[in-house]
């Protein structure tokens, strides 16, 4: 357990970054229902369950144009 405690200062920021990314992407998916492809449910699943890469793929390729 001592090992884990030693690693906490580095695991917490990593965890925080992933949560922030996932939440920002989730809010965006819910608020802007226009996507380049796919539908809402698909993007929610991708954003929440594929760590890191899910939100990035959404913002780069899935996000539709603003109205």
């Amino acid at each position, binding site marked *: 357990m001592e090992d884990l405690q030693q690693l906490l200062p580095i695991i917490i920021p990593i965890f925080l970054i992933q949560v922030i990314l996932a939440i920002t992407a989730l809010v965006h998916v819910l608020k802007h229902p226009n996507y380049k492809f796919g539908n809402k449910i698909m993007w929610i699943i991708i954003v929440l369950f594929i760590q*890191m890469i899910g939100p990035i793929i959404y*913002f780069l390729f899935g996000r539709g144009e603003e109205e």
Partner: protein
Amino acid sequence: MTQFWAMFKKENISFLRTYKLLIFCSVFLLLAFLSPLSAKFMPEILSNFLPKEVADSFPEPTAFSSWEQFFKNFSQIGLFIVVLLFAPILSAERQNGTLIILFSKGLSRSAVVMSKWLFAAFMWTIGYVISFAIVYFYTEFYWPANDVTQLFLAIFTLWLFGLFLISVIIFANVLFRSYFSTLLFTLGIIILLFIVAIFPKLEKISILRLATENNAILQNLFTWQDYTVLMSVTSGLSIILVLLAVIIFNKKTV
């Protein structure tokens, strides 16, 4: 100059609004945090998969392992993200036709190209320096007594390679209008660099060395003298690419 800084500010805002800043920051920060972590954890992960005798034969992780992970991450994923995010920096606006309005109001074309180059270089530098600071802090934290020398040279070469790549992207943006042509052109240049790296005679101008020899630098296999020619060649090429981009863009129809 006013035009230049106005475009620079505009670039900042568009980076923020298209969520690219978010992606850029989170990827760079994550890579930075992961480097010392994976260096520290690697022996334990391996010991879960491999028989005990094999796992025990691995050396204990040191500060070198942490920097090794840092250079591996940034020369691959880090630069990949830079290319991915900055590839549409000019071509998107050319496709949309939004630049034409600004040009008709008298915006100088050189200011557009230069401000976009400076913005990309600025973001790369800031992201890189912050990630470096994080890795440095954690490496000192976990391995207080380390004998890593020549860190600055190793850091500097990869940074210079990033700047060269950004110049290539800007040049490609002027040549092509579409995102994928820009990506393909950049990929082509990188393949060319790999081909140059095959020939030992071209060692002095093989730009790829800047991004692949960082660990060797840390192990004191190279010094500043080994890189003076290569660094001048790289900086010279970058400047030529940007100047060419400005000249071509001045003559081209938007």
